[in-house]
Structure formats: C-alpha cells, structure tokens
C-alpha cells in the first residue's frame, strides 16, 4: 500500500497549491537556464548564419563583437587577391535606436555587400531578398515592421521587402538588413547644420594655408561633398568576411593574412568564443549564481513544506511505529511525498513555461539536456529536502500516541 499517495489524495487541495508554488519556483529556475541558452543562441546566431570561414578585423582588436573594429572598405579587394579565397564581403553592423510611430525602435543595422550579397542566405519567412542598391530592407518580425512598411532612417526612407523570424543581435534586438552603403549612410548620418559647419571649418583651414590662397579652386572643393575629396578615405567597415574556395587550406590562407600588420584574422569559432567570453560570460555567471541560489531556496522551501507535512501526521507516524512499521516504511512515506512534490512541481514548471516563456522579451530556450539535468537536480533536492522530515519522523517515540 502506498501511504504517500493516499496521504496526498486525502490532502489533495493543500498538496495541489503547495505543488503549484514549488512548480512556479522551479519554472523560474528553468527559465533562468532558458534565458542563458537563449543569450548564447542569440549571441552566436549572426556569426553562425553569416557563413564566413574567416573574419578579418582591425589589427590587435578582438573584432566587432568585442570592441570597435575599423578597417578600410577596400581591404575586401586585397583579401580577394589571396590564393584560396573565393569570396570577401564587407561586414557592417551597428545598433541604432529611433522613434517609429511614437514608440522606441531598436534594431541592429546589418550591411549586405551589394551586389554580391542580396541577402539570399538570410532565412526569409515572408517577402523577398533585396532587389535594388538602395532604400530596401529586410526586417526581423520582432521589430514589428510589416511588409511594405516605410521607415525613415537618417535622411532616407526604406521599405520593408522581406521578413525574418527570430534573427536577433547579441543584445536581443531584431536584425535589419540593408546594402552596405545604406547601412553606412544610416550609421554616419549627420544633420545638415553639422555638414555645413564642417564644410565651413574645412574652408577656413584651407584659407589659412598658402596652398589655399594660391589655388582658389581648392576652396570650392573644400566646401563640396566629402566623397569628392580624394584625400578623404571612404567610410570604414567593421570587418571583412572571407569564404574559402572548396578544398582550400584554411591555415595557409590564414597564415598569409596574418602577415599583414594592419589586420587580425579569426576563424568563425574564435569569433564565437570571443563573443561568448566577452559579452555572455558575465551574464552566464550572473544567471548561474541566481539559478544556484534559487535551487538552494527551492530545497529549503520543499524541506520546510515536507517537514510541516510530517509534523501534521506525526501521530500517525508514531502509531505506525507502535504497530511495528519499519523505518523504511516511514522514511519511504516522506521521501515519496517529497519526490512526488518535486516531480509534479517540475512537470508544472515545464507546462507553465511552455505557454509563458514565448511571451518573454528575450528568447528563453529550453533544451532537452537542460530539462534532464534540472529533472535530476529536482530528484536530488527533493531527496535532500525529505531528510529533515525523515529525521523528525525517526525521532518520534511510539508512545506519543499513548500520551495524546
């Protein structure tokens, strides 16, 4: 006869509410793990999806995910000349925050190396890739920008022509794909007044030197477009993504590139490792500590609940001892209740999480391995939690029944 089941059946209401509380607590523990997994998934999503073999970044930097990386856009042509390189693409990525329809809108502006890259590799769930060099964008659904929506960024208006689902940057903001030139235009957009002031300052600098006084035409050039002045470099990009030819030896290509003193080369895995070690590590430790704390709290709470339930039936336990029940029967009753509570709480946590986690602002990713490990943790903490109750039960004297 299973005493634990019968006791639970008799106190079904109390057990249900208690288990609900335990379940909600375990759901938070589960959610913490899911948030951590989601962080890693989102952080590495772009690196995984972009499909590069090597990342060329500014010399002595850790790349655009760790710090500011600035390299000349024409580095792309130098890289293409290296034997074994099939494709090189400019990588431009930056986060902006704008106002749209009265709401703040944060997005990761991602440059596609038009015309080689029109975004065919992007997992589009609605619409199409880019078809023109300017004023089109592919937006993630998390940005809540429907197909055909037009949005002003800087001085230009961009139309949403394609949509992705679940493509977010390292900070969880939705990705928006533009051509590299549009991405740069958005990044380096400055107000007209700032442009006028810069041009006036330029003219003043030229007037102050002999060359300016001797060559009046230079003054006209100085107040013209910056792109029309050969001495000014083009806007820089964050990185150049390298795809190797089939069969090419990655280490050979890498060794060649590594000889260039102005750049640093990383493999995709190294970029991911840098990303995780830098951006995610502190969050991981924070979540890990919080999770450990919650597990300890859950253990204490389950222990106190089981202890209270044991106290409630202390006379019954004394009676069982008096009529000769073995300690295994009494210990089993308490242990089984703790395990039942843990198991039901775990199931409840999973079930509630299934419906609740999708509404969280950041991705909560529950993996099977995490579920199994949490299940094992629940078994361990339930067992530990039952020890206090078992200890109390085993100390009860059988004559407690007679004394009552």
């Amino acid at each position, binding site marked *: *006869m299973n*005493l634990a089941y019968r006791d639970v059946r008799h106190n079904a209401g109390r057990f249900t509410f208690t288990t609900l509380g335990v379940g909600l607590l375990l759901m938070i523990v589960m959610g913490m793990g899911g948030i951590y997994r989601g962080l890693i998934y989102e952080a590495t999503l772009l690196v995984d999806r972009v499909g590069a073999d090597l990342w060329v970044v500014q010399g002595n930097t850790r790349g655009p995910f760790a710090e500011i990386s600035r390299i000349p856009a024409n580095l792309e042509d130098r890289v293409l000349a290296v034997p074994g390189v099939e494709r090189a693409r400019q990588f431009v990525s930056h986060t902006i925050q704008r106002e749209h329809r009265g709401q703040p809108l944060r997005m990761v502006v991602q440059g596609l190396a038009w015309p080689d890259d029109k975004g065919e590799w992007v997992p589009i769930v609605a619409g199409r890739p880019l078809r023109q060099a300017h004023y089109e964008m592919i937006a993630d659904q998390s940005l809540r920008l429907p197909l055909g929506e037009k949005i002003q960024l800087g001085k230009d208006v961009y139309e949403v022509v394609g949509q992705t689902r679940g493509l977010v940057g390292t900070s969880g903001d939705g990705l928006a794909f533009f051509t590299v030139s549009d991405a740069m235009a958005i990044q380096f957009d400055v107000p007209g007044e700032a442009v006028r002031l810069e041009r006036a300052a330029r003219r003043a600098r030229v007037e102050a030197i002999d060359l300016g006084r001797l060559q009046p035409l230079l003054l006209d050039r100085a107040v013209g477009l910056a792109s029309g002045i050969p001495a000014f470099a083009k806007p820089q990009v964050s990185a150049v993504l390298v795809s190797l030819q089939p069969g090419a030896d990655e280490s050979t290509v890498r060794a060649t590139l590594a000889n260039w003193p102005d750049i640093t080369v990383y493999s995709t895995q190294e970029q991911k490792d840098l990303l995780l070690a830098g951006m995610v590590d502190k969050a991981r430790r924070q979540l890990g500590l919080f999770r450990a704390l919650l597990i300890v709290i859950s253990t204490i709470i389950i222990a106190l609940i089981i202890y209270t339930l044991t106290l409630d*039936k202390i006379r019954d336990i004394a009676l069982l001892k008096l009529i*000769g*029940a073995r300690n295994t029967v009494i210990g089993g009753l308490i242990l089984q209740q703790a395990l039942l509570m843990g198991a039901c709480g775990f199931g409840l946590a999973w079930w509630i999480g299934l419906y609740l986690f999708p509404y969280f602002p950041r991705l909560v990713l529950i993996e099977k391995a995490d579920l199994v490990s949490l299940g094992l943790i629940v078994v361990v903490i339930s067992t530990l939690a039952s020890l206090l109750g078992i200890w109390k039960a085993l100390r009860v*004297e059988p004559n407690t029944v*007679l004394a009552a």
Partner: protein
Amino acid sequence: MIAPATQAPAIEVTNLRKVYGRGHTEVVAIRDATLQVARGEIVGLLGPSGSGKSTLLTAMALINPPTSGLIVISGQSVMDGPRAMVDARAFRRQNIGFVFQKPNLIPFLTALENVQIALEINDTAPREARKHALELLDYLVVGPRAHNLPDALSGGEQQRVAIARALANDPSLILADEPTASLDSALGRQVMELFRKVAHERHAGVLVVTHDPRTLDVFDRILDVEDGAIRVRDKTATKPRNF
C-alpha cells in the same frame, strides 16, 4: 521452565520496577509488579490517575523499558530489566495488538486500509492482506463501512476498526488503554463485549486499562494498581462468568 509458546501465557511480568529520576528526584512508578494474563483471558487493570497503569502498559508494550524485572510474552523473554532481548518493533508487529482511548485511525486511509496496513507492515501480500482485513471488519460488524474514511465513521465504528487493526496479525496479546473512555455507555459496553469475544474466540490475552466501573463484569479478573503496586481484586476473582 518456560512452557511451549502455544500453551504459554500471553504475558508474564515478574518483579517489574520502573524508576524515574535519581536521588532526591527519584520517583518509583512501578513497584515490583508481577502479573500474568493467559491466552483467552481478559483482564482489567484499574487504578486512579498517576497510579502507574500507563507506565506498566508502555513497559509491556516494549516502548518504555523498565528499570528491572522480566517480561515474557508468549513464552519468549522479551525484556530483562532495561535490556531488550528481541527487536522490540518487530516483536510488537507480530505479537502485540494495541487499542487506545481514541481510535487513532490514520485519517488518510479508509477503514479497510487502516487494517490492511497493519498486515502489510507484517509482510502479508497486499491481496491477502485486503481479504483478511475485510474478514476482520466483517467479524467486528463494520464490513459495510470498509471503504469509508475515519471521518465518516461514528466513534463506535472507529473503535471497532481499531480493534480489527489490533487483531490483524493474530497477536497473542492485546493491550488496550482506556478504550471506552471516549464512548458513551452503550457503545463502551459494546466495545468491551467485543474484547471479551476476541479474547475467547481468538484465544488472545487481553489486558484492558480502564476507569469505567460500568463494564467491570466483562473481565475474567481485575487487577488494581495503586502507587505502582498490583493487587488482585478479590470480589471479581469470584465474579460469575457470563459467557
């Protein structure tokens, strides 16, 4: 020489002494008590509050070791002074049944399960335990209430279930601690009649601690406890037997 178990008394207590405290605080709860209850016999243990009845009962139940003296149950020495000569809990499980002032039924088990658990604790297979428990409940005329929880039973029914539980493992000795105290006189009478029936039909020795003077006629013998000492009450020794 100890007689074979089947013929041996249900319990023999010899020179039992229980002392609490030491020196100035020493209290003698039982003074060299000697008693015997034969199988098939129902014996009443009477005495005022604080006379040592409950201490004697708990000593005989192997849950409160005496300071000195010998306890033999069904021919087997079980306590020699404070030293247990058997595994007390296992011995209780197999040889002693208990009935209390309150029925003390486990509230989350049905009447049937309350009896069945006593059998299963003694390693009876669940199906067999269930069958035997039902037979016992029928024997004590509470079979129709077998599937009710204790809350749904009257006081008398609960006490009958408690007696069924005490009988579950066919014990040689049943110890009852004021089993009629929480019942009205009619129910109390019924319960005492049941004890007498159990003693005689199931051949168990029944020792009942009671205050209730209305049911003294059911006992084969009455023992008075006063200041921890036992003496046999003469008038009941010659009481006419009604069965």
